[in-house]
């Protein structure tokens, strides 16, 4: 399988602290790739570097073979790299309808049109309706996002990334904070993503990771620790040591 997203010696320092220290990661097309690691391992920083929220101190990022290291965040989205956030980043004053419409208009190059009214582009409206239905948001589409229950907001968070129609989707703990009985709804939508969409998932819940991923990378103290198929990673004594808090020399 061709590599669709790759980092080469990626580093990020905050002051004197190396949050990410020389990560070289290869993600294959269509992969279900999980990035795991203890708290503070630098997982979210990696996502922020990949999406352009942060600029790396060193190293390169390649998307479909092209160097995007210094590309602005919004341009990466247009190249097919979308993400969700660990903590919801939504437009609280807008409705789900408007929110999804924003992403679709932008992708179709119609987002800056000032001469036509919102809702008059049938292409956009059709797709909004389709995505809202797929994410079970149709019944709340006219409500203010800020007033929605947390589970619905979480679905919208993911739906919004999907509306960008990414080739590569970065999911930062999609089920975080969602009550147990609502989790399946979110995980089902993630599982139902088209096979040609490459997914990089950050997750703490090992049940989710092992039911979803076909490849796992373990990040510890900002460095890539283990990288392999789920069964290899599960067997690896070093990973157990890290997760059980044991010292490696013991």
């Amino acid at each position, binding site marked *: 399988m061709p590599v669709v997203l790759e980092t080469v010696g990626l580093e990020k320092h905050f002051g004197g602290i190396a949050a990410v220290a020389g990560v070289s990661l290869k993600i294959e097309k269509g992969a279900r790739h999980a990035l795991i690691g203890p708290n503070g391992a630098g997982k979210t920083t990696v996502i922020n570097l990949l*999406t352009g*929220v942060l600029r790396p101190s060193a190293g390169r990022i390649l998307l479909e073979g092209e160097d995007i290291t210094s590309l*602005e*965040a*919004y341009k990466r*989205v*247009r190249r097919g790299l*979308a*993400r969700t*956030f660990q903590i919801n*980043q*939504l*437009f*609280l*004053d*807008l409705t789900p*309808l*408007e*929110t999804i*419409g*924003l*992403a679709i*208009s*932008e*992708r179709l190059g*119609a*987002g*800056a*049109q*000032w*001469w*036509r*009214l*919102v*809702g*008059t*582009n*049938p292409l956009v*409206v*059709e797709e*909004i*309706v*389709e995505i809202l*239905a797929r994410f079970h948001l*149709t019944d709340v*589409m*006219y409500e*203010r996002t*800020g*007033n929605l229950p947390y589970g619905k907001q979480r679905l919208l968070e993911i739906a*919004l*990334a999907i*509306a*960008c129609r990414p080739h590569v989707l970065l999911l930062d703990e999609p089920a975080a904070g969602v009550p147990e009985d609502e989790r399946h709804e979110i995980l089902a939508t993630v599982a139902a993503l088209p096979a040609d969409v490459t997914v990089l998932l950050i997750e703490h819940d090992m049940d989710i990771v092992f039911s979803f991923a076909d490849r796992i990378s373990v990040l510890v103290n900002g460095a890539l620790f283990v990288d392999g198929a789920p069964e290899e990673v599960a067997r690896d004594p070093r990973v157990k040591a890290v997760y059980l808090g044991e010292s490696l020399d013991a």
Partner: protein
Amino acid sequence: MPTALVAEVAGRLARRARWRPLEYAFWLAALASVFLLPGRHLILTEIAWLALFALSLDLILGYAGIISLGHAAFFGLGSYLAALFAKHGIINEPVLALVVSGLGAAVLGFATSFLVLRGSDLTRLMVTLGVALIMREIANQIPDITGGADGLQGVVVAPILGMFQFDIFGHVAYAYCLIVLFILFLLARRVVYSPFGLSLRSVKGNPLRASSIGISTNARLVAIYTFAAFYAGIAGALLAQTTAFASLDVFSFERSADLLLVLIIGGTGYLYGGLIGAVIFKLMQDWIANLTPQYWQFWIGLVLVLIVLVGRDRIGLWTGGVRALAERLMRRFAPGAAPVPVPPGEGR
């Protein structure tokens, strides 16, 4: 089935841009004032250009979240350009001169927009304030062109479209300002309800997420800032043309600060805030100045403090009318009600 839903959704979205009865009432009242209040046309003229100026600030503050204490920079430039065009006969026809003056202000808006892209509200307040101070000082330092502290005198404004001569009662001036205000209001309304306008609200609400769905937040802010500067320039040009005069106070800090006050009185983010605020501000100023000529600023200050204390969320009251108010009261007093949620429009 889905096609029916698509049609319904499109209808719902389109309905939001539809004219509401109160809007018709507002503009009919404005039209009526032309015929019914001929003795008040001088102050109405001031209200009209102030309303346009406040509309301009609303575009960047209410829709894009850019706060400014120096919006007079664009107003003042428009003012001087219009006065100079008329004085030296560079562009005699007022409407054309008006548009060119607005474009001149837009160029300044574009050039300075890059200064307000980054930074907090405080940075933006300081940067915009600084730009206006610089503009004032430039005008002060080139008296050969601007007349310096004496102001630009000897301006003679030609008849509008070669037909309508400005009169001392302000009849023509008011009709002229009102028509310009109405046309630019229609344009602003169009822009605000467009995909571009919606994306501005997303940039205001959450710039991080906006850029994460492919929106070029900087480009949007530059565009609306430039557009708003055009409006402010037109407002300034209207002042110069209707008074046949321009002086340094078009750039003054008080002008920018008063403008913010006008918008706070009327409320931001629904386009009518600046218009209603301008009416209230000018009438209040006029009324209080008649009562107590020395102390009118005291009363204006008191009103400002009261408004801010009562709450910034007047949008719901104006647009949703009594219903929104009733809903809030019911929620507050309903037995066993949960704490009152943050009302819409309160979010930043």
